[in-house]
């Protein structure tokens, strides 16, 4: 058995990597990274007093890596990895008091467990068995495709906001894989075959694409040894598949109006920010701060103005969906005015214009930075949220330590950076919009 050289281990503390972010919070997390002999990057986050442990096996293959005529395949394979013949992950992990789940994003797929700390060796051995097999039973696939259709009905078609969400992605990323539904359409799912799944697993589920994140009250060297004995034994991939890597496009302004049976109308505005090779990661950090300035707390700009003063919105939220090839800055609002959401859309755009035209005060920036620091530190409180955060960082940056350092980039953002971003968001050729007019019937 090969073993990862101890010289290749790197250990730091969260306080070393992000000293300004963690100052005054008393967090004691050490972070060790190593590469297993087959190339799997392993990150161990040690919190001595944590009562629980979490693992995430992250693969750098997601919805963007699926052939154009096989929509939803990455997500379908994620489901099928719980149905490997002869291996009941659910039962085996729940026997230990743990739980397991998985997710698929545009950039990657993650398999996660939460458990008591003593379960680590069993969990890693189970993951080794799961990822060492590629068997897909046709009957299992048939039943699981029905489950996914039900998932789609529930998340998209049964929800006015689910429909808006899917449309805004299609509009914001035209001709790009990020614009395609992760769940796939019913037509996509109908043509998904066992062979599609097998081929996808063989080409994408390879050690070169994997990272293991483990968080809890653990001794890092023992975790890395256990990982080497289990996942480190997975054979290298046979095919050298090139990932889809084109940067998300710059979008022509578009506006789509939907009319659907709903109780409240809705507006969703989106702009792609933080494209790699341009001003990223500073632009992404500015976008994060902008979301706080716009909609975090009752004194934020859009909530104060549109919810409390003008009373034309009942709920409004800005968020940044981070992706490797271009993130999405989203502003979503619901209006009690069922008939015509255009007034709300215009009001949001006017507020964004004012951000570009009137300088943001230092006090407003400081307040936003304080809020973002606390919210980021909150993500480091549980083993599960630590594993989530570092998995997300891995998918975006490829390297955990550099990614953790970038967590405090927002502290360097200036009012000028935010005004520049706001100007971009308000430019008519950069922002897309989906409006939902609520009607009495379908």
């Amino acid at each position, binding site marked *: 058995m090969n073993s990862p050289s101890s010289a290749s281990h790197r250990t730091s503390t969260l306080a070393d990597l992000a000293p300004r972010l963690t100052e*005054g*919070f*008393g*967090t004691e997390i050490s972070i060790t990274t190593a590469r297993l002999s087959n190339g799997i990057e392993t990150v161990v986050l040690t*919190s*001595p007093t944590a*009562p*629980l442990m979490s693992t995430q096996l992250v693969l750098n293959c997601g919805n963007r890596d699926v052939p154009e005529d096989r929509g939803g395949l990455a997500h379908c394979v994620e489901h099928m990895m*719980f*149905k490997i013949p002869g291996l*009941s992950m*659910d039962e085996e992990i*729940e*026997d*230990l*008091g743990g*739980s*397991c789940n998985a997710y698929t994003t545009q950039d990657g797929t993650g398999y996660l467990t939460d*458990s*008591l*700390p*003593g379960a680590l060796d069993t969990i890693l051995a189970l993951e080794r068995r799961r990822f060492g097999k590629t068997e897909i039973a046709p009957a299992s696939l*048939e*039943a*699981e495709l*029905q*489950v996914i259709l*039900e*998932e789609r*009905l*529930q998340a998209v*078609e*049964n*929800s006015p*906001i689910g429909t808006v969400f899917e449309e805004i992605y299609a509009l914001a990323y035209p001709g790009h894989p990020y614009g395609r539904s992760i769940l796939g359409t019913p037509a996509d799912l109908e043509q998904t075959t066992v062979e599609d799944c097998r081929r996808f697993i063989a080409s994408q589920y390879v050690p070169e694409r994997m990272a293991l994140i483990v968080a809890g009250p653990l001794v890092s060297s023992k975790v890395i040894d256990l990982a080497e004995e289990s996942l480190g034994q997975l054979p290298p991939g046979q095919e050298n598949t090139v990932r889809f890597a084109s940067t998300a496009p710059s979008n022509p302004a578009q506006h789509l109006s939907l009319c*659907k*049976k709903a*109780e*409240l109308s809705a507006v969703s505005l989106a702009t792609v920010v933080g494209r790699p090779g341009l001003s990223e990661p500073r632009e992404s950090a500015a976008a994060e701060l902008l979301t706080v300035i716009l909609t975090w*707390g*009752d*004194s*934020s700009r859009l909530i*104060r103005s549109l919810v*409390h003063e003008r*009373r034309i919105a*009942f*709920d409004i939220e800005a968020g940044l969906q981070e992706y490797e090839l271009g993130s999405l800055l989203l502003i979503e609002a619901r209006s*009690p005015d069922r008939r015509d959401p255009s007034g709300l859309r215009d009001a949001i755009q006017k507020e964004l214009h004012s951000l570009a035209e009137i300088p943001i005060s230092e006090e407003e920036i400081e*307040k936003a930075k*304080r*809020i973002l620091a*606390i919210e980021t*530190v*909150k993500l*480091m*409180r*549980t083993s599960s949220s630590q594993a989530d955060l570092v998995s997300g960082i891995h998918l975006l940056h490829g390297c955990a330590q550099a990614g953790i350092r970038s967590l405090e980039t927002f502290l360097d953002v200036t009012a000028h950076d935010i005004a520049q971003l706001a100007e971009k968001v308000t430019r008519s050729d950069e922002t897309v919009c989906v409006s939902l007019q609520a009607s009495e*019937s*379908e």
Partner: protein
Amino acid sequence: MIFGPAQGKPFMRTIAIALAAASFSAGGNEVMIPHPTEVFMGNGMKALLLTKEDSPLVTTLVRFYSGSRSDPPGKEGLTEVCARMLARGTKTQSAAKIAVAIDKLGGALDLDADHESIDLFLELRLQDHEKGLKLLSTLISESTFPDDEIELVIDQMVSEIRAIKESPSATAQLKFRNILYRGRGYGRPVLGTETSLKRLSPGDIRDHARKLFVPQNSILIAAGPLRRVEPIQWIHASFGSWQEEGPRVRTEEAAQKFEGPAVVLIDRPEFSQVDLLIGYPGVSAKSPDRFALRLASLILGGATSSRLFQKLRAEDGLSYDLGSSMAIRHHAGEILIAGATRKESAVDLIRGIDKTISQLRDDPPSTQELARAKALIRTDLAGLTETSDHLAIFAAELAQLDLDSSHLEETHRMIEAVDTDAIRRVVRKYFDLKRRLIVLVGPVAGLREAVRPLGRIAQ
């Protein structure tokens, strides 16, 4: 409310609860609830301090022991309006200024009512904890409930009620509780209805708030790295002089009035799935059956290895989100099985759920199933100590139920003592087809005849 000068020196008492009474072993790891410090103030308010040195933030939770169960019939939503109004203006600060003060601290103030209680929840950096306590005491004792803000809060709640109508699962749950507890507190929607909210006058709201927000009706929990500061002094400085006398809110008992079996059909043709909720009256927070029933619910549908999930989702592909859960309330409870499926498979899903329950009723779970369910609960209990907010919420629940942290060890012991006979007994007792209520929301036109054998069709 009057926030007058302190009436004499506050009475302080610190009680050390034995450490051994608040710990248990889970999977070889010792799980401990921190040693709480109990502080009694002269005005009737109690505070509990929980030191968690590895927490980056301090959680402060002020709980009032009255929830929406105390809403008078016809005035549903009254308690929720009162809770939200605490951040909408004081004698010296407008709603906008309060919002700036909270946001400047970097914290998020959550004001939340449920059927049992009202919580004010704030998480801040240690250096801002004292400021946070002062802010909370001002909101609680000096709120003025201005008319224009009442109007805004009610408009907001009306929009939220409309948004709930867009969710078939939330619609099913509201209807389920409404019928199970017909006319009683737990059956009333916390947010109220559009009609009941319109009935509320500013006078109703101020009167109700005067009865709700009194020190004798409250507890303050602070959890975090408190060893480095002087929280007892800060709490006394902020809340020690808060005085309020007068009548308190009365909450009626929560007897279930339901007689089953019954089926409710809510036709919503715009939805593409039928959401279904199958439920039975369950147990209250102090029922001795709660341990065995919790395990039975896990075995039935509370985990991905459970019988419902494995048979009806993994094998038959009938539903994506399918499972069972328990709502354990202070004076009552419910057992719930929820799922969603296409209209054409709705009856198959109900039959499948019935068959799975019937099998659990007739055949006890295997030793492995029971051991697995116990292991899942051990992990859940360990998670209670993970963060300061988990600890604070757990401590508030215990305090409201007049329990102390030794309850954690008792829960662990009682769970371990449950055997397969106990599971069979509670399944037979509580999964009683005569007391079953089914709610279906979605395109249900045409399902009436198919579901008629399952119970009387109720409104």
